[in-house]
């Protein structure tokens, strides 16, 4: 087996996969940000004085960011397959932990915003007034 699949080949294959998955994550985040930008401008021009329109766009952007982070986490997991030293694994663990925490807080925020948006839609007077 070691003659069929050399360690170098395995490393290059995993490295390629890591780059592909990371690129996919970057594309998701970039496209999400561009879509959100267009929708923010649309909300500002066509739906003035309606802050809940912006919340809806932010929710969409949050979903794109969470998906992009998932891709980044997947690439971190892939990297552990070829991390040879304990130090490199430690660094990967730190990066993965921070990305997981970011994903957690992003998910929590999306949930809070969804609840706020649902409350505003059912009863506009129950929402927290904005400054």
């Amino acid at each position: 087996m070691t003659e069929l699949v050399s360690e170098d080949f395995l490393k290059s294959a995993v490295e390629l996969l890591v780059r592909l998955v990371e690129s996919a994550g970057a594309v998701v985040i970039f496209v999400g940000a561009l879509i959100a930008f267009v929708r923010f401008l649309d909300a500002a021009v066509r739906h003035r004085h309606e802050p809940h329109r912006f919340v809806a766009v932010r929710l969409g952007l949050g979903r794109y960011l969470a998906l992009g982070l998932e891709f980044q986490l997947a690439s971190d997991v892939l990297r552990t397959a070829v991390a040879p030293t304990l130090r490199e694994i430690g660094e990967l663990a730190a990066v993965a932990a921070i990305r997981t925490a970011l994903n957690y807080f992003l998910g929590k925020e999306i949930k809070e915003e969804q609840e706020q948006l649902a409350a505003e839609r059912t009863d506009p007077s129950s929402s927290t007034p904005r400054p």
Partner: protein
Amino acid sequence: MSGTLGSAALLVTGAALLSAAAALLATRSALTSLTVLLDMLLAASLLRLVLDPTPVQLAGTALVVVVKRLASAGLRRAAASRTRASS
């Protein structure tokens, strides 16, 4: 690839500033504008995190998230207390 990602992050940062300005002009709401700005800045930070992020970049992104949560919570509380005081 890092050059492309850097340019993309810069583009998103510019879009963040424009979106926040548009939100402020349209709604006259500091909270809406700030949350829009911080969400878009978070997207730019996440783009910078692709490809072997440095600890400083990671800390910068974490800081954006912390500022985002603190500012949102602070402005919401201030708005709520202003409403209570006026009623």
